[in-house]
Structures are given as C-alpha cells and as structure tokens.
C-alpha cells in the first residue's frame, strides 16, 4: 500500500528539474497543451515501473525509453536523467507507515535504487511494477470501451492479470488433445493384436466359448487339464513340457499359412487403387504447401514460435525471463503477447496443416497394421527356413516403421511427400518374399496332432500376451486421456464460473459508478458485461430503449465516462484496499462541466483511500475539483508555459484569497482586483448552477458578474428559509435553531458584501475596485470571502447545491448532509368512501 509524497524529475522528457509535493493527497496539475503535464505522468510511471507507456505500443515505432527518455539536450549524458520518488508505504503491518525513496535512472530503467533497503519496500515496489495500469491516459481509457470484444477482453484480462488463466487453458487443452491422439495408434495396435490372435485360434470372431473350445481341444489332446471357464489371467500353455519355459521351435503349418494370407491382404490393402488415389491426393496437398513460400515460412515459423513460447514458459518458472534465442530480457506478458500475435497470424496456414495431417494419420494407421502382420510372419519364415524371405520382410517391416515415423513428424514437407510417394509401392522383392514364405509354409511337413496342439497353444499364449500388452497400453493411455479431458473440462468450467462471478461484480460496480455520475439523466442505467471464449462483450442501456455497444448511441463524453467507470470498477475489484493511488492523465476532456463535477464527487466519495494525481488543461475542471473538495487549494500547480530550455514554468495554485492578499502586499491593487473578479465570475456561475437560480438566458453563455451573484444571494436565503420551514414541519427544533442562525449569518455577510446593491450602485462594481486603496480593497475582499464561506457547509466546506438538479427540488445538500426543503405533508381529512 503506497502513497506518493514528493517527486523530483531531472532531465527527463521535457523537464529539466522539477519537484512536486503531493503530501500523500490528491493532486492536480493544470496547464495548457504542451506545458509539460504529461512529462510528470511519464516520470511517475517511469519511477514506479521503469516503463513509459507513451513510448511503447502501437505507433511508437523506433522510439525507446533509454534513447528518448532523457531530455533532448541530455541525449549524450543520459546518466543525469532520473526520477526520484518519495513514497509512504505500509508493509506487513498495515498500521506502521514507512518512508521509501525510489530513484530510477534512465540509463538503468530496470534497476531502481531503493532506500532504505527494506524487504517490504522492495516487495511493495515490485508489486507496483506489475501494475502499470495505475497510470491511465485517455488513449488507454477508451480501450475499455471503444474496442472489439476480443480487444476489450485482452485489455481487461491484462488489467486483471488473467494471462496465466488463458495460458493454462490452452496448455491443458493441448495436453488433452495430444493424449487423445495417442489413443488412435494404440487402438490400432490392439486391433491388430486381436486379429493376429483370432488367426492363431482360427476363429472368425472372438467369444469366450469359442476360445475355450479351441484351447481345451488341444489341451485334451496333450493330456493337459482343460479349463472349465474363461479367466483373463488364463495361461493356455500351462503344463506343456512339464512346466518348463515354453519356446516355439516349430511352425504350425496351417497357422503360418493363415498369417501369410493376412500378409497378402495387407499388401493388397497397401496397393489398392482407392488407397493409392488417396495417397496421391494427400501428396499433392503437401506439395502445394511446400511450393508456397509463404506457407512454408509460416509453418516453419509456427513451429519455431510455438517452441519459443514453450521454452520461455519453462524458463520463466526458473526466474529467467528472456528470449530463448538471444537472451534479451522481456516482460513475460509482453513476450507471450508478441509470440501469440505472431502465431495468430499463421493460424490460416496452421489450419491447412491440421487438415492434411488428419488425412496422413489414416495412412499411418494402415501402415501400422501392415507392420504388425509383417512382424508375425518374419519369425515364422525364419523358423521355416525361408531366410531370404525373412530378411526381406524384416527390412520391409523396418521400412514401414520408419515411414510411420516420418509421416507422423510431417516436417520437412518434402520428406513427407517423398515418403508418401513410396508407401504404396513396396519393392518387388516383397511379393517374391511372400511367395517364398507361402512356398516354405506349404512345404512344412504335416506335424503330428500332438505337435500341432503344442504349437497351437504356444502361439496362442504368445498372442494372448501381445493382446494383453496392447490392451494394457491402450487402457493406461485411455485413463490418462480421460483424466486430461476431465482436467481441462473442469478447468474451463471453474475458470468461466469464477470469471463470470468477477465480471458480474465488476458490472455491478460499473453501473453504480456510472449512475452516480449520470444520476440526472441516466439514473436507471444498466450494463451487460458478458464474457465468452476470448472475448468480453459490453452493452449499455440507452435511455430504456435497449442495450447497445457504447459507441452506438452514447456521446463521446458519455463514452469517456464509461471508460473511467469501467477502469475504476476493475481497479476496485482487482486491487481492493491496495488501490491507493492512480494517475489520471487528462482522461475527462470530452466530459461536460456538469458531469465532471459528479466525477469529482465520485472520486472523492467512493475512493476515499485512493490518492489521485490528475492532469487537466481545463481551469474550470480544476475549479470543480476544488469546489467538490477532491483536491485542497494547496494540492495543485499550474504549468504556465514551457520551453525546451527551461521545461515547465510552474505557479503554485494558491487559493484566490492568498493570491489577492499577495498582490495587496505588493500594493498591486489592480492584480488583486483581477484575481477577485475572476474568482467571483466563476463562483457566481457555479452558485447559480448549484442552487438552480433562475437567470435570464444568454445564448453565448457570456454572463456578467452582476447578472448572477446578486440573484444567487436571495435564492440561497430562500432555500435556507425553506429548509428551516421543512425542519419545523418535521419537529426538528435543533435544526430549526441552527438554520435560523445560519440564515442570520448569511444575511449579515450578504449585506456586508453589498453584492445585492450591484444593479443600483456602480461604485461597488469591479471596475471601481482598481481605484480603491489597499485597505479599501482588502475590506471588499474580506467581505466577499465571508460571503463565499457562507454559501458553504461549515462542517465539510462544500458549496451547497439543490438536489435533484432537474425536476422538483427536494433537498439542499452538501458533502456531509442533506436538508429537506419540502415540508412534511400534513395528514388530510379522512375521506369517507362514496358508495
């Protein structure tokens, strides 16, 4: 929890040497465009985060903090450019406040010098470094409102620090998908193993009965115990060779012939016309991709960026946040956004790739099936003495294995296409090998029934083991895939649920804040902040006619107000009690004077624990901040002018009475008169607006002081009288007495000010003030000061105002109380119902 005490800015941006004393309070910097206000904002952001938003992002081109942060005359000696910020913060013990000095040099933006070296202070600064949103300009503010749902989602997610959530979601989804992809080859493998077993059992379809029938027949023939029932752990070769380890030394003729028949089928499958045509099509698509230089570049880079992102994520966890290629240090969020944007640009090519890869996957499945059959026959051929065929088939099996791997890898595209070109054209020697195998198997002498039974049981047992192994692998992968799927689905559901809750709370806060600013004209305002994957839609009510995007019907000023309210709602929600300061850089330039006053009231009343540093080019807005007590008279400065050589030329913004007195001290009667006149012109307009005083309308808005202030006095007197009468009607004697005293006091100071004499006595006009002596003008100033104070609440110091500002007046309000001005309704006579 930090508040800003002072800032000293040296040789930074357009500032040579400037010190501002915030004293931990709200503070305003007023000045025309180009007087250096934003330099102060940049300096605060730089001191706290090491960054300057205005020198980053879209449109900033080759501008950088290190090169363009120092004053233009100090580019050769950037070591003199620095910002020193004194802050008060509370660490682990929120009650104990400590001072901390942060000095950040432009030559080393990432290495602030913190004094005293204190773990809590360093931690507090670290926390703020992660929250650059504490500095808000209008350009940033409109990003929350006038933008696409996807861009708004990005902005809000960045503000709420939700990047991690999206990353986790993407990674968990990728993991679940890859776990699913593993299942397909394992299913294929299990299916092939089952087919191989069925061939050994010589049954077309597996049933426990058929299985037991075949196995028991052979076991009975060998005099072995038959199995009464099927069991998953059954060992069909149990008892052969007296329990010694069984090994297959002979080839069972019919079994081998069945297997070679399956091999011929696989060979036919691999060369049949539809399959060949399919392969040709896939190959053509891959060649098309390979011949498109943009596609190749994109696909290669996609893999490169995806890997880069993966390496970076792994490095971040070990505290290294740099580009994995060149080691340049990066802000993790910025680096991810950078690579994610690049990956997004390649999405079209990635989609093409995925479609082709899916077709390649079907080819791989068929090759794997052939590979399994080949493996079965290779051993039998060897045992049957067909050594040449065994070797050729073994090589083919290995080639199939390699082809599966090359197709799975997909890249390089040329290799993938080349592999596809040969998968459907096995060497001629394979067909010869198949013929040789068949010949060898046919020539196997018919074994005795006992030998056949023995070989049968050994082969079946081997193939059962293969099926079990394949099933086990498939089952393990299925469990993993199910868990991975459940994890990502649970994550998505939970994430959405929490975010919907958060956005709901932010929406409610946004509505409340906006209604507070626009209670005159949009007191029934509602909004809808609806999140969906990767987007955040904002629709707002337009005078009960429906909900529309903010830019649809609302004015620019209303949109600015929405941006500020959404920002404040998000910050309140994100930072809670830690939202202790914010820098608002001319964010309300489009909001009209009436609503700015409400903004000032909202900031003061609803964010009492937040120190706002505000910049504005509008003196009237500054005056509103003061009359609404958002800032005190001593908490503002005026930047009068700026030159490259001097930087901003500052005038401390003292209150009018101090300024006028300062003039009188110098015998500057004219200066004091001008100060007083300007202030009274502002005050009279403000009073007439606040108290709803009827005045003659002037289309040009050029009202004379004498047209407004003399009318505000009787109007306020009448309001006090009405408030007293209302208090009396409610039986509030103390209030009546207090208001009576206030009325008398107001009458006395009004008379003393002679303002009501203005229309009939030109001697009291401000034109005549210049001719008064110092003593005479001082008395006038004191009388006007007393009158000004009398228009304000004694307790909170705020000028009174009539509420509501439209329709029937109900109360006379200030910052701390509301006085009814409508008497309590008397109970009327009982009216008898007429039948």
């Amino acid at each position, binding site marked *: *929890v930090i508040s800003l005490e002072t800032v000293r800015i040296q040789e930074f941006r357009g500032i040579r040497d400037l010190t501002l004393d915030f004293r931990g309070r709200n503070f305003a910097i007023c000045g025309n465009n180009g007087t250096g206000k934003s330099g102060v904002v940049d300096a605060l952001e730089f001191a706290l985060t090491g960054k300057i938003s205005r020198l980053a992002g879209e449109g900033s081109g080759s501008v950088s903090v290190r090169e363009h942060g120092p004053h233009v005359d100090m580019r050769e000696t950037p070591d003199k450019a620095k910002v020193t910020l004194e802050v008060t913060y509370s660490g682990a013990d*929120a009650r104990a406040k400590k001072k901390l000095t942060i000095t950040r040099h432009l030559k080393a933006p990432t290495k602030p010098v913190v004094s005293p070296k204190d773990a809590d202070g360093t931690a507090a600064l670290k*926390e703020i470094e992660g*929250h650059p949103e504490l500095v808000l300009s209008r350009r940033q503010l409109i990003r929350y409102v006038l933008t696409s749902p996807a861009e708004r989602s990005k902005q809000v997610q960045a503000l*709420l*620090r*939700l990047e*991690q*959530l999206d*990353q*986790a979601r993407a*990674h*968990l989804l*990728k*993991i679940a998908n890859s*776990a699913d992809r593993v299942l397909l080859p394992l299913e294929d493998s299990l299916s092939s193993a089952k087919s191989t077993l069925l061939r050994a059992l010589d049954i077309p379809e597996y049933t426990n009965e058929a299985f037991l029938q075949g196995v028991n027949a052979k076991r009975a023939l060998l005099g072995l115990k038959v199995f009464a029932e099927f069991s998953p752990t059954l060992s069909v070769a149990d008892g052969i060779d007296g329990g010694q380890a069984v090994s297959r030394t002979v080839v069972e003729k019919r079994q081998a012939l069945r297997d070679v028949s399956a091999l011929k089928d696989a060979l036919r499958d691999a060369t049949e016309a539809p399959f060949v045509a399919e392969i040709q099509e896939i190959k053509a698509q891959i060649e098309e991709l390979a011949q498109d230089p943009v596609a190749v570049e994109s696909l290669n880079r996609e893999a490169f960026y995806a890997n880069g992102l*993966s390496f970076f*994520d*792994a490095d*971040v*966890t070990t505290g290294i946040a740099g580009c994995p290629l060149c080691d340049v240090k990066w802000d993790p969020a910025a680096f991810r956004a950078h690579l994610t944007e690049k990956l997004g640009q390649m999405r079209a090519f990635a989609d093409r790739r995925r479609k082709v890869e899916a077709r390649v996957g079907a080819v791989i499945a068929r090759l794997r099936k052939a590979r399994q059959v080949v493996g079965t026959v290779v051993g039998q051929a060897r045992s049957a003495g067909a050594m040449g065929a065994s070797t050729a088939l073994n090589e083919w099996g290995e080639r199939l294995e390699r082809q599966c791997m090359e197709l799975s890898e997909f890249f390089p595209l040329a290799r993938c296409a080349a592999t596809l070109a040969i998968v459907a054209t096995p060497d001629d020697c394979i067909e010869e090998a198949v013929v040789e195998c068949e010949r060898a198997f046919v020539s196997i002498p018919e074994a005795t029934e006992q030998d056949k039974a023995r070989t049968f049981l050994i082969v079946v047992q081997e193939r059962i083991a293969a099926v079990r192994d394949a099933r086990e692998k498939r089952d393990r992968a299925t469990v*993993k895939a199910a*868990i*991975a799927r*459940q*994890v990502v689905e*649970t*994550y998505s*559901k*939970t*994430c959405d*649920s*929490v*975010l919907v*809750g*958060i956005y709901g709370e932010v929406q409610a806060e946004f509505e409340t804040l906006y209604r507070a600013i626009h209670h005159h004209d949009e007191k029934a305002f509602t909004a809808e902040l609806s999140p969906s994957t990767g987007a955040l839609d904002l629709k707002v009510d337009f005078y009960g006619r429906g909900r529309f995007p903010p830019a649809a019907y609302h004015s620019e000023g209303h949109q600015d107000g929405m941006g500020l309210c959404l920002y404040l709602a998000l910050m309140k*929600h*994100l*930072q*809670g*009690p*830690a939202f202790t300061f914010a820098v608002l850089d001319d964010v309300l330039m489009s909001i009209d004077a009436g609503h700015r006053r409400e903004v000032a009231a909202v900031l003061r009343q609803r964010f009492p624990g937040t120190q706002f540093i505000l910049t504005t080019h509008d003196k009237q807005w500054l005056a509103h901040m003061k009359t609404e007590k958002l800032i005190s008279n001593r908490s503002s400065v005026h930047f009068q002018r700026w030159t490259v050589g001097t930087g901003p030329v500052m005038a401390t913004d003292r209150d009018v009475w101090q300024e006028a007195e300062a003039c009188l001290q110098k015998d500057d009667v004219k200066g004091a008169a001008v100060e007083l006149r300007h202030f009274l012109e502002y005050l009279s307009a403000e009073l007439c607006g606040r108290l709803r005083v009827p005045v003659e309308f002037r289309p040009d808005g050029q009202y004379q002081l004498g047209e407004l202030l003399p009318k505000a006095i009787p109007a306020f007197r009448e309001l006090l009288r009405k408030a007293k009468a209302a208090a009396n009607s409610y039986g509030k004697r103390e209030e009546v007495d207090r208001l009576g005293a206030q009325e008398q006091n107001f009458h006395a100071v009004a008379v003393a000010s002679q303002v009501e004499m203005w229309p009939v006595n030109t001697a009291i006009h401000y034109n005549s003030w210049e001719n008064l002596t110092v003593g005479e003008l001082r008395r006038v100033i004191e009388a006007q000061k007393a009158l000004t104070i009398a228009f304000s609440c004694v307790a909170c110091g705020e000028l009174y105002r009539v509420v509501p500002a439209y329709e029937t007046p109900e109360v006379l309000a200030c910052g701390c109380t509301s006085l009814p001005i409508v008497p309590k309704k008397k109970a009327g006579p009982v009216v008898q119902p007429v039948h």
Partner: protein
Amino acid sequence: MSDGKSQGKEQAHEGVRDVSAEVFTAFLAALERDQVDPMVVQRLRVALIQEKTVSERALRAAVLAEDPSP
C-alpha cells in the same frame, strides 16, 4: 461443501487480488470434489500454487505423470 467460486474467494487477501490464484484454487477444489486421481491433483497443486507455473511442460508432467525432463 462450498462451491468452487467461494473457495476461490477464500484465497483473496486484503492486498491486490490474485484472480489467477482464485481460479486455480477453485479448480483444484473442483477436481478433488470430482474425485480425480489425488496424485494428479497434488502435482497440479505444486505446479499452479506452489511453483506458480502454467508452462506446458509442467502441466503435462502433472496431468499425465510424464517425466518433464527433455
């Protein structure tokens, strides 16, 4: 039994709100409630809460119990 959202809120402290931590806490609670393998939940807890990482490698190791070494 409290829902995921409220469990997530328990994570919130008086300082800056950590929405990610809220979501992760609620997510782990939901996995436990759904009786997902406790080892998987524990590995995810270590990655997301203790080590504060959401890298693909760490999550893959947590979900699939795969060796994260390259």
